[in-house]
């Protein structure tokens, strides 16, 4: 699909595409996570935990998010390079 859409006039820079995609997708995922009651379960599971454990989890998730950012970046850059 990327080779069909991200070509010609619609070819965006990877950063630009991520910047445009993120708010819409985050809103969609946030709603789906709410419908699946993941937020409620997460709050109930982690509220009684000690603060140090929660901060460790935040650190791990941030690192995971950074890997995801670089993965998305390389994916879109590779697509742009393979379909000039």
């Amino acid at each position, binding site marked *: 699909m990327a080779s069909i859409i991200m070509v010609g006039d619609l070819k*965006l820079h990877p*950063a630009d595409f*991520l*910047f445009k995609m993120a708010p819409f997708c985050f809103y969609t995922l946030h709603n789906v996570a709410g419908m699946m009651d993941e937020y409620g379960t997460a709050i109930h599971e982690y509220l009684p935990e000690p603060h140090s454990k929660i901060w460790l989890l935040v650190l791990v998730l941030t690192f995971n998010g950074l890997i995801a950012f670089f*993965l998305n970046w*390389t994916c879109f850059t590779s697509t742009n390079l393979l379909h000039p």
Partner: protein
Amino acid sequence: MLVALWLACYVVLNIVMGVHNKWILSHTQFSFPWILTSIHIFISGIGAFLLITLGNICEPARLNKNGLSRYAAFSLLYTLNVAMSNVSLTLVPLAVHQMVRSLFPMLNMTLDYFVLGKKHHFSLVLAILPVSRNEAYLFRTIFRSRPCLIWGISGCQRDVFLEFL
């Protein structure tokens, strides 16, 4: 050469991402794939925003209605792909997850032929066949012996990399 470097980075990051996601979803108490995917998108958006505003890496393009609708649909599809990948990681072992993902080139080529009427070069089809063979072998021996498992996995990764070359 540059393309090969970016593809190599993509392959490595893909593997690291899969392993790290599996570790978070299985070995910590954070087994919430949809929240995890939303964190991925959130941090990706923050990173892109910082690169554009502080790094001046590119000028944000203006899209017309047609372009916006196409990108919105593609964004949704891409996000669903990532979300389903994370959801499946909570249900199956990582080896099965990677096996199924390694079938994607063959599935893509089949769909290209029957849905889009696009024919791929015979050499590409030939390159995909060893991947399928390794997948079948790996599936058959996954719980039998560790040396066969390691051979199967290394064969799959080698074949996928050769396909990109």
